[in-house]
């Protein structure tokens, strides 16, 4: 065992979390044979539990590894994570209290279900639901990779620990539903805040202060490159990456589930005010990537094998092992591993809700409402097992590329979900056509980038406008949906299919 103290603390934390996961079923006990109880915690989480749950859900283990790794490798552009996570809050405030009210009134537990109620169109809802499931699958896989990186950093090799961890995850998700990640999220976030606060106090003190850390960063990486003449260059790349990512975040099934499980619109609004605390944490965490540069872990022989295997993702684990005493490294790694379990559980539950409500009950004859929770529980096992197979069979780079593509896909549900909260101007079939154009054009542009880059340089009237592909293609999607809606509303209106009422949206 290379790091006995770290390994011991790490395993002890994981054990505590497993016990919590299984006891969570009894917390505010509800009938877990009902899907609103299993898959949405009975819509009863108050301001603080929702704060931990949504924060634990959106800021994942992958974030903790990948954002500092991007700063470590690419510099200033990696800091887009900060403006991204600032912009999600006005969107949360404007859109989701309304969505909660409609969902509560009509018993919707997923985004696609709302779309089906709004347009009376189960095919549009199917497209939105499948987009969510396909975007989520590689996301769960990336949580596994985050976990694998810290387990590997402890010197534990082989796939057995990962398989064990996810068997346990599948088991407590099955028995406790959303209550399990809600309870574990509290432990996870306290550990993450503790780790980040200690890191930004202890490590700069060891390295001679923040001024000395920034001085070690190559000047070309410290700021965004100034754009060349006739181009908006890195500026529009940075801004569109932040805006597009922010528009996409709450459309993911797991984040929608986190929001809909709160006890009311006021809880969501208060969280739009309180959740930015996580953005400060993320900003500081991003700078840990620079601390890793300044500490010189990249050239230390004991970490050479780790960097060779995990690339820049090894920057954070290496710095943690270098800068902290063994037991605290165990705390930090425990925080990251638990940070993988919380979102992975919510992702599995959210996908299961979608499968049950938007695919199984709509397209499989003979399904009954009383069997819903059973179907959802079984499908959550399929999601976890699928992600595990994904990791064991497919190389890591593919999971990263698919996650990139997943972001491009999920934003294509923005017009159908977000616009529909404010207007019934659109036609359901027009939204489906816009969605298809968006998915195809985004996938095509990412393929032209060899699945490696998310920015495309558009040439408009002699100007070059580099833009996040997701943002550009969702604009196209919205234009197609709007233009097609005009004639369709005149000749084949689907307004009669709307089961919601105008006063639901006030």
């Amino acid at each position, binding site marked *: 065992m290379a790091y006995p103290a770290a390994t011991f603390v790490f395993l002890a934390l994981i054990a505590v979390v497993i016990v919590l996961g299984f006891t969570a079923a009894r917390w505010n006990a509800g009938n877990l044979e009902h899907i609103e109880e299993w898959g949405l915690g009975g819509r009863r989480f108050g301001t603080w539990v929702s704060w931990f749950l949504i924060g634990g859900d959106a800021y994942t283990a992958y974030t903790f590894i990948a954002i500092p790794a991007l700063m470590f490798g690419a510099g*200033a552009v990696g*800091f887009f994570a*900060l*403006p991204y996570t*600032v*912009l999600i*809050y*006005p969107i949360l*405030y*404007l859109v989701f209290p309304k969505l909660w009210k409609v969902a509560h009134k009509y018993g919707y537990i997923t985004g696609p279900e709302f779309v089906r109620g709004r347009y009376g169109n189960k095919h549009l809802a199917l497209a939105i639901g499948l987009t969510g499931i396909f975007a989520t699958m590689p996301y769960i896989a990336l949580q596994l990779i985050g976990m694998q990186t810290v387990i590997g950093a402890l010197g534990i090799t082989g796939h057995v620990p990962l398989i064990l961890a996810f068997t346990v995850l599948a088991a407590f998700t099955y028995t406790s539903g959303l209550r399990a990640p809600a309870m574990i999220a509290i432990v996870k976030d306290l550990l993450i805040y503790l780790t980040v606060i200690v890191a930004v106090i202890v490590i700069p003190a060891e390295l001679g*202060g*923040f*001024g*000395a*850390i*920034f001085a070690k960063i190559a000047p070309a990486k*410290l*700021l*965004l490159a*100034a754009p060349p003449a006739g181009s908006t260059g890195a*500026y*529009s790349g*940075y*801004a569109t990456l*932040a*805006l597009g990512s922010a528009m996409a975040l709450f459309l993911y099934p797991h984040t929608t589930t986190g929001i809909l499980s709160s006890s009311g*619109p*006021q809880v969501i*609004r*208060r969280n*739009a*005010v*309180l959740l*930015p*605390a996580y*953005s*400060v944490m993320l*900003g*500081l965490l991003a*700078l840990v990537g620079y601390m890793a540069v300044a500490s010189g872990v990249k050239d230390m022989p004991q970490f050479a094998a780790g960097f060779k295997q995990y690339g820049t993702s090894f920057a954070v684990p290496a710095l943690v092992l270098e800068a902290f005493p063994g037991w605290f490294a165990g705390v930090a790694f425990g925080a990251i591993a638990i940070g993988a379990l919380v979102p992975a559980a919510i992702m599995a539950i959210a996908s299961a809700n979608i499968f049950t409500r938007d695919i199984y009950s709509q397209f499989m004859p003979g399904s009954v409402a009383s069997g819903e929770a059973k179907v959802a529980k079984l499908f959550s096992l399929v999601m976890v097992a699928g992600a595990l197979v994904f990791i064991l069979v497919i190389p890591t780079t593919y999971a990263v590329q698919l996650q990139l593509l997943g972001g491009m896909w999920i934003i294509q549900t923005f017009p159908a979900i977000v616009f529909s909260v404010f207007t019934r101007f659109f036609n359901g079939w027009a939204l489906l056509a816009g969605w298809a154009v968006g998915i195809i054009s985004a996938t095509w542009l990412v393929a032209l980038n060899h699945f490696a880059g998310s920015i495309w340089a558009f040439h408009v009237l002699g100007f070059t406008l580099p833009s996040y592909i997701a943002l550009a293609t969702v604009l196209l999607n919205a234009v197609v949906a709007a233009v097609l809606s005009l004639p369709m509303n005149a000749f084949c209106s689907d307004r009669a299919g709307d089961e919601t009422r105008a006063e639901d949206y006030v």
Partner: protein
Amino acid sequence: MIKILLLLVFIMVLAVPFYNHATPALFGFPFFYWFQIALVPVASLLIYIVYRVEHGGEK
């Protein structure tokens, strides 16, 4: 119309050319970094004001 404050959040955050500078530095942080971190509490405060004006009295 207090919602206009939320638009202000978008404008500040997306004004990349305004904050892509090394100076003035603060506590060793180049402007690019401390300005964006400082935007977080500002955004939170603006959302809080909108919340208080629109829904402050509700439970």
